[in-house]
């Protein structure tokens, strides 16, 4: 069985992403269960908070560094991550299933001839195997399986595995490996940010709207509520296909599958494709005029009523407590 586990963690604009700490905690926990050593690697230019990893219990961190590596480059990151995994003979690599992780992990897997289990929501040890659970059919079913190649690659669904501070913090040892002329055959020239918007895939709270809002301008009610909650704005497929909202906000099959701690569905009836994408949210609130809407079958709390009447009051009530 394996003897080394490598946490491949992600920085964006020189800061570790929250999901990086989820990867660290999970890697450490796997290492304890399988009695492995751990290491962490991060590729980037300057990174502010690398030593924070130690608070989560992994002390040795390798920073693969070059000023051209600020943004993700699929070609360069793939080579560098795979080379480092080979150098330390890593047997298990753990990534987060973010936009970067989803792109990078499979490419590294080819270089290492490793099987890939993507978007895992649970990992357990059975005999000497890691048994992974991942949602398939957008969450309508759960697949349990294992990787049969000697080297194994796992990506973790963000927001599912906890990032936990270690009981005994360790001293950070950051080793910087400067690399020269990385392979920038494929590179990010520019990042266009959606103005000040939180992404549904990364949000703790999501407020989503559907056809019950009747017209695109009424989406302001959803945006206002999201604003006071610090939430991301989501959308049903119906309103995306109608052109009211951008596809990046779509929740459900052919959109994003999300698991926030709170999901507020406003004027969404709950088509099977939508429910598949959000039913693993910790708490679901539904506001809909139709008491028979399928969304109420999975909602923890429901108000059977008019979104136009309820949303402004809800926004005001939440303002009072914030």
């Amino acid at each position: 069985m394996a003897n080394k586990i490598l946490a491949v963690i992600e920085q964006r604009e020189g800061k570790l992403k929250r999901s990086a700490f989820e990867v660290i905690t999970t890697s450490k926990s796997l290492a304890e269960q399988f009695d492995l050593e751990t290491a962490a690697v991060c590729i980037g230019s300057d990174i502010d908070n690398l030593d924070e990893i130690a608070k989560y219990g992994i002390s040795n961190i390798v920073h693969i560094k070059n000023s051209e590596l600020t943004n993700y480059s699929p070609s360069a990151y793939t080579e560098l991550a795979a080379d480092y995994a080979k150098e330390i003979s890593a047997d298990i690599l753990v990534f987060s299933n973010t936009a970067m992780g989803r792109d990078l992990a499979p490419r590294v897997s080819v270089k290492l001839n490793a099987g890939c289990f993507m978007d895992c929501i649970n990992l357990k040890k059975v005999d000497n195997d890691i048994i992974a659970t991942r949602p398939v059919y957008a969450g309508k079913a759960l697949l349990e399986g294992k990787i049969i190649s000697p080297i194994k690659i796992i990506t973790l669904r963000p927001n599912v595995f906890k990032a936990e501070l270690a009981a005994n913090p360790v001293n950070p040892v950051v080793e910087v490996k400067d690399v020269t002329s990385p392979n920038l055959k494929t590179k990010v020239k520019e990042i266009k940010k959606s103005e000040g918007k939180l992404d549904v895939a990364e949000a703790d709270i999501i407020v989503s709207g559907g056809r019950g809002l009747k017209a695109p301008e009424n989406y302001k009610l959803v945006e206002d509520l999201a604003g006071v909650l610090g939430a991301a704005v989501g959308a049903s497929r119906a309103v995306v296909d109608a052109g009211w909202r951008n596809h990046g906000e779509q929740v459900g099959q052919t959109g994003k599958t999300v698991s926030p701690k709170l999901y507020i569905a406003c004027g969404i009836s709950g088509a099977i494709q939508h429910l598949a994408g959000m039913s693993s949210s910790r708490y679901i609130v539904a506001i809909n005029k139709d008491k028979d809407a399928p969304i109420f079958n999975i909602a923890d709390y429901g108000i059977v009523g008019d979104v136009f009447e309820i949303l402004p009051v809800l926004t005001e009530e939440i303002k009072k407590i914030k």
Partner: protein
Amino acid sequence: MKIAVCISHVPDTATRVKIGPDGKSIDPAGVTYIINPYDEFAVEEALKTKEKIGGEVIVISLGNDASKESIRKALAMGADEGILLKKDGYFDSFSVANALAEEIKVQNCELVFMGKQSVDYDNSITGQLTAEILGYSCVSVVVGFSIENNKITAEREIEGGREIVETELPVVITAQKGLNEPRYASLKGIMASKKKVITEKPAKEVNNLTEVLSLTLPPSKQPGRIVGTDASAVPELVRLLREEAKVI
């Protein structure tokens, strides 16, 4: 230039999943199969690219005879020829990618489109694997694409924004919703597709690197409580979210 589009034949997104008797796959009874929705964006982009720079669009799919239906659909949209790589049973993304890569090599296609994921297993890695096996560049989850000579500029969706990615041919592009509006097959297209050739050949055999142990339905969620029927229920809802759920 020869442009490849790789497509898969998958259960309609409206499918209510039931587990099959083997406990490892879905029960196909009563399930309607369709072309993977993301692959339609890939087909459209391939056709648009052909209209711009010329060439030929080859549709490649891996599966059993039923997959011909989806290949036929892509041909009706305007693709030139189809290839069915025949394979039965379970194959993971790794063995799919190897079989696709092999055929792309045979066909000598330098530009490859496919959907960013199939809506069955949702792995979203076949494009990246195929590219890496071929030694091609790859841009995944693409919502904008342009080609000038052999230079590619693609917009890739990431959390909270888009990356503008530059690369070169040969390349694999995986299509995300938003890339384009897939065309409908015209009656003429449908008629013409019937004359187009679908070549069948066995898929290259590559061992899976992963194994499915079981497929189960997620625990069903119990309906919660209806807090009220008008705005007067809002204070109680807020109280529950704060004190019971502790999420705000």
